[in-house]
């Protein structure tokens, strides 16, 4: 690709979601990317490799995704803003290191351009079947943040948000694209970088000797960071640790640490939640969706509204943490929630859990390879409206 040698690209571009995600990462200040090629995510690392020499960033193609997913964490301790990029098979290889990032509280972004699975599946075709993996894929208890863009523009905008959230909460953030978004070309407007809100890394102000890497320095549950070479002589381990970062093998230390790791997200779900509602005011039926499927859902809803049905849309932009409160309240006032997703019914399990019988929940599954036919969703709406 050509960028005319400019570090900062502003204005309107016609690019696909993969390229837009790369530009968003650069605009967010990302200056370290480690990756390994895999369809349909490769264009992201290719654009990064082409752009970083001009922006001062470092790209390295590692020997595999296991290496990529920990190289970015080394880079964060070196002071960088970092991400890695992959798809199903590669993301599966990264799981141990998503847990490491959660445990050691390393802000970083994992981009998953989802394709059909399991295994090698459908390399060039879309799916949304890694949604539960994004939440639960690594072993142990932890919380994570995951975002789902539904357009190239959102690949740009929301990956900036992903970096911001990762810095604010010191968590790995999963950026859950899919093949159709990744390869869809649309107009993407890039604002001047100075107009883009960036959450800066919270570095400790404590001098060497007084800094404790896992002791929050304010009333959030999020400790301040440092980087290597500052004289703080930190010890960082994936073992259960105390505020100094020292390993402590006890149920008491485990309880304290895990409650904080989980709490820093759970206590802030209301701040992290991002849902977009359309036509919910008088709706009796609501179609819930995320990512590419939200665009198909919108078509189906319009078809139903043309027939006079009171149907609304709710799109989850942040899918994890799950917006429990929003769904609970909605379940009180609608009679049916319909959830199309390009998997055999994953996020709908969360919807059912939160609806808890207060309304009907209908899954519209799809095994992947393409997006839903809007008519399938339309028929589900018609059936539900009875």
């Amino acid at each position, binding site marked *: 690709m050509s960028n005319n040698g400019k570090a900062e690209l502003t204005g309107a571009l016609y690019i696909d979601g993969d390229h837009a995600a790369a530009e968003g990462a650069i605009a967010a200040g990302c*200056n*370290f990317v*480690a990756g390994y090629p895999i369809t349909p995510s490769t264009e992201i690392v290719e654009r990064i490799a082409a752009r970083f*020499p001009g922006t001062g960033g*470092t790209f*390295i193609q*590692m*020997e*595999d995704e*296991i*290496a*990529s997913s*920990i*190289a*970015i*964490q*080394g*880079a*964060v*301790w*070196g*002071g*960088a803003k*970092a991400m890695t990029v992959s798809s199903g098979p590669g993301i599966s290889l990264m799981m*141990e*290191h998503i847990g*490491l990032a959660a445990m050691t509280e390393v802000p970083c972004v994992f981009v998953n351009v989802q394709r059909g699975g399991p295994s090698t599946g459908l390399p060039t075709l879309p799916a949304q079947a890694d949604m539960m993996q994004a939440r639960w894929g690594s072993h142990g208890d932890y919380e994570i943040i995951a975002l789902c863009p539904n357009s190239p523009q959102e690949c740009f905008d929301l990956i900036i948000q992903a970096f911001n959230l990762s810095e604010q909460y010191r968590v790995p953030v999963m950026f859950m694209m899919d093949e159709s978004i990744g390869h869809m070309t649309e107009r993407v407007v890039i604002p001047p970088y100075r107009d883009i809100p960036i959450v800066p890394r919270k570095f400790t102000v404590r001098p060497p000797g007084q800094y404790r890497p896992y002791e929050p320095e304010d009333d959030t549950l999020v400790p301040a960071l440092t*980087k*290597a*070479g*500052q*004289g*703080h*002589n*930190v*010890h*960082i*381990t*994936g*073992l259960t640790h105390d505020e100094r970062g*020292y*390993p402590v093998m006890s149920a008491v230390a485990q309880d304290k640490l895990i409650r904080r790791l989980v709490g820093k997200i759970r206590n802030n779900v209301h701040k992290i939640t991002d849902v977009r509602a359309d036509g919910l005011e008088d709706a009796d039926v609501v179609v819930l969706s995320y990512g590419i499927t939200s665009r198909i859902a919108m078509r189906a809803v319009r078809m139903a509204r043309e027939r006079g049905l009171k149907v609304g849309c709710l799109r989850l932009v942040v899918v994890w943490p799950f917006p429990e409160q929003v769904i609970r309240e909605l379940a009180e006032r609608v009679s049916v929630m319909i959830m199309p997703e390009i998997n055999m019914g994953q996020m709908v399990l969360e919807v059912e859990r939160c609806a808890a019988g207060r309304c009907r929940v209908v899954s519209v599954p799809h095994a992947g390879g393409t997006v839903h036919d809007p008519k399938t969703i339309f028929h589900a709406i018609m059936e539900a409206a009875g």
Partner: protein
Amino acid sequence: MTTTSGGLQNPVEQYLRMDRIPHIWCPGCGIGTTVNCFARALDDSGLNLQNLAIVSGIGCTGRVAGYLDFDSFHTTHGRALPFATGLKLANPELKVVVYSGDGDLIAIGGNHFIHAARRNLDVTVICVNNFNYAMTGGQVAPTTPQNAVGTTAPLGVVERPFNLPFLADSCGAVYVARWTAFHVRQLSKSMAEALRKDGFSFIEVIAPCPTLYERRNRLGTSLERMEWYRDNSVIKNGADTRECDIVFQDKIVCGKFVDRERENLIEATRAKQEAARNR
């Protein structure tokens, strides 16, 4: 900071997290000896130690990072080198040392090892080879000599082990040495040399694991093992690394085998970018 009983501070204590002592290693374990040598090497290295970072994987040796009072990272099993790759590339001012076990670096981490050496990542790798997976109870490793036993090869190992100096050499390491835990002065000197190299430097340290490997193979106490190392190692500086295979209870070739110059990853990247700018 604590001091030894006579009131004289042990010179290596300044480099240790004394608030974490006693350590977890068994009496007679060779890992502590290597750490002693490393601390002394730091004195001789002339490095700015504020920029020193230690990265370990998982294992008994992997615990080294936790005892050294520097920026230290105890990562995941086998992945110290890719972590170190990110750390070094993000801040080239850092001196990054990877300190880990044979299983960690060469079995599960073997792929990262060959690639880091190939890239000539500027990192010093210290591999404590105790011929087994000690942390998990004495299973065999790709370094266990043929015919030695371990819990997962009770009849003796049939596979041929890696010759680590040859592996590192053939992948392009700029500094390759092997010592045993008996050779404390040579090891310490070698560590200081390796730390001063601007590329992938590798030191294999053969060290006893009296609790598991030596006991199961009836090789005696740690002290007896030191005597054995003394009597059975042959120092051959500059030896052809192809001739450094380890054979069960046979002579161990020690020495500095490789010391050469090669443009490292960061230098090569900068040169390429410079050339592109001037085009």
